[in-house]
């Protein structure tokens, strides 16, 4: 995708004033969506050619007749009919099955931490740095975010800066779910900023007010639209639209998380608990794509989750903690309409520990390959983002 601009900056990127590079309209945007709770990938990307799938899930399998066929082996959950399937047809959506981390504790927290830190799997190979998430190191490598005085480039759309974005680069965070009017009005903001004018926090304070102001302008736009009778977006769709507005205008590296995937009980199939959740997610992401407008061509969205779930349904018509997941890759310039990465036939003998999808596409290699394509990073730069991993380009962009 938009590599030219970045290659021009080349290795000197980090040394250049960040504002210049942030201002460029065609800077690639990356949004990482983390599905916390481990979503059941096998009921999103249905292995329709596997009779084992139908044997293993007598109550929750999605029938071949119900899925949206993607190719001869895979079908998409019908919950995504109006949202992600159209992107697939436009070749703007790809899926990477058997994706994840080799960490196999099957603990939500441990595995989420592990993925967000993006440090070597082999704990004996060195010291883990709990203060450094891989997206922060990526921000560093591509020169986004730097000083507190810069416009805010890397941003978590969450209440707290998540592990994935913690580290040396200052990162903004602002949850966009429930936005009230700014509690501090413009005049008060000016007076408060005045108190900090001659302190080392001057940039952080004025930068923070600036973002809040921007968000509130977007809010005003929403309210105006609503008053003209437009159907207001709700829930994640609304949040995703807000994210898009910020990513369109100023944020190049974004992160958001979505919960509610830990479907141990009564997961459902073509409809039901998981399908509803997937429907909301898909709708939000489709709205995100729409709201990005002309910038959609410079944007990549990657949807990840800490691990997959047991391939066989459990005694409660749900699924338990598993291993391999399926990642989604969406974007205007994504080489979509295909199932990417290493694959294996889905049958009992190929399961990991006879219970879960194996991990054939390790997330660090996958993100590394993506970052190389998107930002033209060198091996040396990639090694700072994902130490000890070799990037693998599976041609996603």
């Amino acid at each position, binding site marked *: 995708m938009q590599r030219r601009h970045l290659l021009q900056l080349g290795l000197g990127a980090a040394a250049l004033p960040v504002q210049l590079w942030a201002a460029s309209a065609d800077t690639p945007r990356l949004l990482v969506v983390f599905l916390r709770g481990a979503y059941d990938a096998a009921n999103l990307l249905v292995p329709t050619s596997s009779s084992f799938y139908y044997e293993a899930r007598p109550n929750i399998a999605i029938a071949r007749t119900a899925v949206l066929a993607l190719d001869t082996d895979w079908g998409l959950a019908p919950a995504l009919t109006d949202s992600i399937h159209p992107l697939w047809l436009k070749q703007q959506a790809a899926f990477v099955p058997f994706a994840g981390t080799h960490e196999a504790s099957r603990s939500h927290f441990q595995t989420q*931490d592990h993925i967000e830190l993006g440090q070597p799997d082999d*704990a004996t190979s060195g010291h883990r740095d709990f203060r450094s998430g891989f997206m922060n190191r990526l921000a560093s490598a591509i020169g986004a975010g730097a000083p*507190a005085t810069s416009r805010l480039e890397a941003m978590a759309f969450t209440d707290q800066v998540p592990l994935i974005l913690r580290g040396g680069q200052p990162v903004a965070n602002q949850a966009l779910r429930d936005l009230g009017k700014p*509690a501090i009005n413009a005049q*008060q903001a000016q*007076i408060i900023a005045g108190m900090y004018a001659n302190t080392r926090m001057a*940039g952080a304070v004025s930068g923070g*007010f600036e*973002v809040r102001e921007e968000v509130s302008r977007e809010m005003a736009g929403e309210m105006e639209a609503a008053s003209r009778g437009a159907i207001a977006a709700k829930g994640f769709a609304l949040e995703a639209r807000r994210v898009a507005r910020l990513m369109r205008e100023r944020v190049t590296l974004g992160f958001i998380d979505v919960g509610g995937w830990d479907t141990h009980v009564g997961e459902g199939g073509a409809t039901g608990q998981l399908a509803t959740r997937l429907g909301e997610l898909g709708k939000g992401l489709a709205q995100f794509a729409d709201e990005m407008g002309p910038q959609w061509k410079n944007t990549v969205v990657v949807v990840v989750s800490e691990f997959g779930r047991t391939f066989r349904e459990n005694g409660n018509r749900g699924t338990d903690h598993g291993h391999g997941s399926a990642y989604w890759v969406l974007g205007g310039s994504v080489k979509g309409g295909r199932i990417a990465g290493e694959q294996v036939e889905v049958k009992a003998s190929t399961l990991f520990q006879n219970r879960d999808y194996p991990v054939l596409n390790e997330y660090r290699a996958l993100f590394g390959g993506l970052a190389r394509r998107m930002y033209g990073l060198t091996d040396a730069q990639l090694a700072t983002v994902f130490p000890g991993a070799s990037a693998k380009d599976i041609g996603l962009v």
Partner: protein
Amino acid sequence: MRHLLLSTALVLTLAGCASGPPPALAPAGTAAQDSLWLDRLTYGASRTDLAQVRTLGRAAWLERQLRAGAEALPAAAQAQVQALSIEQETLTARVQRLEAQRKAADALTDDAAKAEAQKNYQQALTKLAREAATRQLLHALYSPQQVREQMTWFWFNHFNVHQYKANLRVAVGDYEQGLRDRALGRFRDLLGYTAHHPAMLRYLDNDQNGANRINENYARELLELHTLGVGGGYSQRDVQELARVLTGLGVNITDNRPKLKPAQEAFYRRDGLMEFNPARHDFGEKQLLGLTIKGEGFAELEQVLDLLARHPSTARFVSRKLAQQFVADDPPPALVERMAARWQQSDGRIADVLRTMVNSPEFDASLGRKFKDPTQFVVSAVRLAYADKVVLNTGPMLGWLYRLGQAPYNRQTPDGYPLDENAWAGPGQMTTRFEIARAIGSGSAGLFKVDGEAKDRPAFPQLAQPVYYEGIAPRLTAATQQALAQATSPQEWNTYLLSSPDFMHR
């Protein structure tokens, strides 16, 4: 007053005899300087503390704080603590009750009923952690033993566990209470306490660590984060050997004991929920940090903890962390060395190490320059606003701490929350702090809403009180004074004061 001064002097002399040279008396300062000094050692100078420092002097105030007294909370705060369900039950009873609830939920066959029961179980766990946080905040706000509260927070963070791992929400309150009891004592006792507490054993997976199925997680953090520190002179081999020492040390929440061979019976240990199961222990000889550890079961651990607690790297690593918390993000190495030396001389007596730190010129020179972390910011703001009126609901404070990213017991990773400014002074954080300053400054903010009542009971933040005029106002910068002068209402004035760089530092 003379009598009081004399008896204090006597105590000081005695304390001096017991623990080395008597502390140098800090130079008498102005009230503003003393309040700044107190801000660093408390959750904000209170009128009582400031009066004590003014009359008795800093050294005497510090000695009172470092003594293991049990001064009670104000009655209104104590009553709230006593009403909490976590105060009514032992940890063992609580864990067993919750476990029964979990099993009953899992046994249900109807999907909807089961989902509902599991949700109830999760909510019960969350309520327990919330109660613990309530107790923590009430202590932070109103305990006369402010240094102990500062240190309780420090130790929880040092020996961090995360409430959302497994069922730890049930145990964080108990874990914290034990740290509070030991907060100013010997490091060895703190270390032993955490090593035996089910919260730690479960958080760092030592309950999964058995002979021939080693889990190194706790062993690694014990060396890297709890004692020696990175670069403290241990190798991967030491981690592996320590993991072998730790085999068999775990958690048993039932009343049953494992079936053991007769030869193993004598090695079995049980203390509350902690269990040392000799059947899971590796009784082979270990080599750790140059020492040979003979296979003696539980006693090996005690031997190793002695070794780690007395190790010079531990003295230096933990002293540096203390100085990071209380002096500067990058503390002066000479100060850290003196603290570490005191640590070694006193066999890790934390009160002694703190005294060395507080009485140092480096400490004095750093006053007013340390950026408050979110907890310090939120607690000090509420403490200033409601010094004389105990809040009835800490829920809003918890909400603010979640927004600011430093909620109690909520650091996922074992390194604890960062102690440096960089982690907390980003743009989003600052904006959120100003909004919280406004919430606190503008009215009762939910802090006086009692469950079951529709509205807050009447309350209004009283920032402009004696401690402000005496301790804070004289040291405000010109820019802050200018902002305060532009306030058009008491609410706005409060907002500006709590938002000011002067208030954000301590």
